[in-house]
């Protein structure tokens, strides 16, 4: 799977929510786009990740 442009190997099946927690993201502070489509936060628990997926995880930073 690609996460923010980097290759990541999934060693077991993950839901999005499980992956975010395992990788150390704060679910309430990020938004996720899976294969180009935004995943609503309410679906993090049911969306399953696959080896061929491309995942973008974004958050707010300071900016003008």
């Amino acid at each position: 799977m690609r996460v923010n442009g980097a290759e990541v190997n999934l060693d077991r099946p993950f839901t999005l929510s499980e992956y975010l927690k395992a990788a150390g993201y704060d679910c309430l502070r990020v938004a996720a786009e899976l294969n180009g489509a935004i995943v609503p936060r309410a679906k993090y628990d049911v969306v399953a990740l696959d080896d061929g997926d491309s995942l973008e995880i974004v958050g707010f930073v300071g900016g003008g």
Partner: protein
Amino acid sequence: MDMLDLGGRKFRSRFILGSGKFSLDMTKRVIERGGVEIATLAVRRANAGGEENILDHIPDGITLLPNTSGARNAEEAVRIALLARELGCGDMVKVEVVRDSRYLLPDNRETIRAVELLSREGFIVLPYMMPDLSAARDMATAGAAAIMPLGAPIGSNKGLLTKDFIKILVDEIDLPIIVDAGIGRPSQACEAMEIGCAAVMANTAIATANDIPLMASAFKTAVEAGRKAYLAGLGRVKDRGEASSPLTGFLEDI
């Protein structure tokens, strides 16, 4: 009460803060000293693992204005705006479409398209733009809630170089005109407000000051002074002197 109206949302403060370039622990003090009610943010790839988040440093009640920095065309701007909305901070967005990496000047044509697309998605859209009357009219027609012309290139601190063109927008466009980018000093923010701009946005001018919270406070005062001067109506200008004291009743033989 004199309020700034952005798509039906009302604000007392007319000083919009860009939150980049200073340390996170400074953010709260800058917001407070600047009397800020709206702060911009950027959307970027998140880092894993317990990193501090800027949202934890912004006091409750502050309206967040995500920008679409990084977008090079309308579609990318829409993508960033949708992600920002998913981050759960409301439906206002500052559209920023830049294809030029040297001067960071905005692409008005793509920006107009982005305004159209985002208005249809229900956003309150504030487009950053090169001050051009035709483009501003197109943005207004496309549903913009305000127009954000640049005073000078982003981060340059060069001031209100485009003043005459911004004044044309103030006179001709029936939307709040907010000077964004380039303002380097409180006096320039004040001048923008004096000519009728509805608000001023600044980031670098404050972030590159020696005393950052004090400069935020200086901007607050300058923006308020300029707004009052605009509402009061500036006095006329004459080429010759005109006594302010009476020209009769002089004491003789001194």
